[in-house]
């Protein structure tokens, strides 16, 4: 194509686009544009899913959370709250642990199985307890059921 013709064609195209932009005629997306949009949406959804996955706590995080809240409740002698995270039997077992007060606690490690979790906790830099948690299903909260 000759150079002047190319320039003319470019000017005509520009003119056409200018009219379209004025809204005289709605733009009908091309198949390529539709495909590109779909691709973009898919990618966005994948990013959202990824963020969602990051935001959802893992079982281990849930167990650490339950252990922490239980220990905090015991630290404050708040038995009403502690009963949310511990059965009466487990609370009774805590009587046998020779720690009159809880002045400090540290969760050393956690092991999570399907509906059973073990949190190893050190109390007052002294006694190490294995707190055994259970739950009926993955949707239920962990509850302390035994102390070793």
């Amino acid at each position, binding site marked *: 194509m000759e150079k002047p013709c190319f320039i003319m064609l470019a000017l005509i195209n520009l003119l056409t686009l200018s009219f379209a932009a004025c809204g005289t005629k709605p733009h009908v997306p091309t198949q390529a544009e539709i495909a590109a949009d779909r691709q973009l949406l898919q990618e966005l959804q994948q990013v959202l899913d990824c963020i969602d996955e990051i935001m959802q706590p893992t079982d281990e995080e849930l167990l650490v959370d339950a252990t922490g809240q239980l220990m905090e409740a015991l630290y404050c002698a708040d038995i009403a709250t502690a009963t949310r995270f511990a059965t009466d039997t487990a609370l009774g077992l805590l009587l046998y642990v*020779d720690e*009159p007060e809880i002045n400090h606690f540290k969760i050393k490690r956690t092991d999570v199985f399907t509906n059973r979790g073990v949190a190893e906790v050190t109390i007052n830099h002294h006694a190490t307890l294995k707190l055994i948690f259970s739950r009926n299903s993955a949707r239920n909260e962990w509850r302390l059921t035994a102390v070793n």
Partner: protein
Amino acid sequence: MFGRAAFLILLCCSCLKLNSNEQLWYARVADARDAKDALLRSLFQKKGLTYPPQRLYLRVFKSENVLEVWASDNNMQPFTMVKSYPVCAMSGQLGPKRKEGDEQVPEGFYHISSLNPFSAYHLSMQVSYPNASDRQLTTHSRPGGNIYIHGNCKSIGCIAITDTYIEEVYWLVAQARANGQANIPVHLFPARMSELKYNILLHLYRDKPTLLKFWSSLKQGYDYFQYHHRVPSVGIDQNGYYFLQ
């Protein structure tokens, strides 16, 4: 004649004075002294306490299976913890002894009433159960008795702390008695009655108000000692519950 008799009497008295701890006449006690005296002396020295002990205080926590020995050099000084002994065996459940044969270990404020160097469980120290509170709160005409802290590891209402540990505690108690402490207090608690444990007890035994009322009266004595490290002076009200005097 009279002079000779007087001399003999004086000689006997001085011998008695030398052996003021009459418990040493018994072979098991002498053996306990030989085995444990150096250890206990060093323990007291480390704690800055006079040895032989002047004043002792014992307390037992049933849940935790612990017997604590505290000592003080005189009436003015607060007590210092000397040693905590693990209890090897203790029958029954939490809650006081209320009748003969219930195999319960009592709960309350007692003292060591006698020492038995011929015990079937090596050495034993009798706890002054039943006291006035127990006699009032008993659910039976016979509240029982013969509650001991002893050796071995068997218990029917008693507190067994093994032969090696009873030798230590017994020898300390024998010396404190020889030094003039007639009543060595021994306080028996269901558990350490801290806020946490007391609240757990309140929760677990919420359907037993009588028991909780009794424990609440015990807690006053626990709290007093915990705060002051001095033995509380405890009275017993008309219903048999303890109160601080």
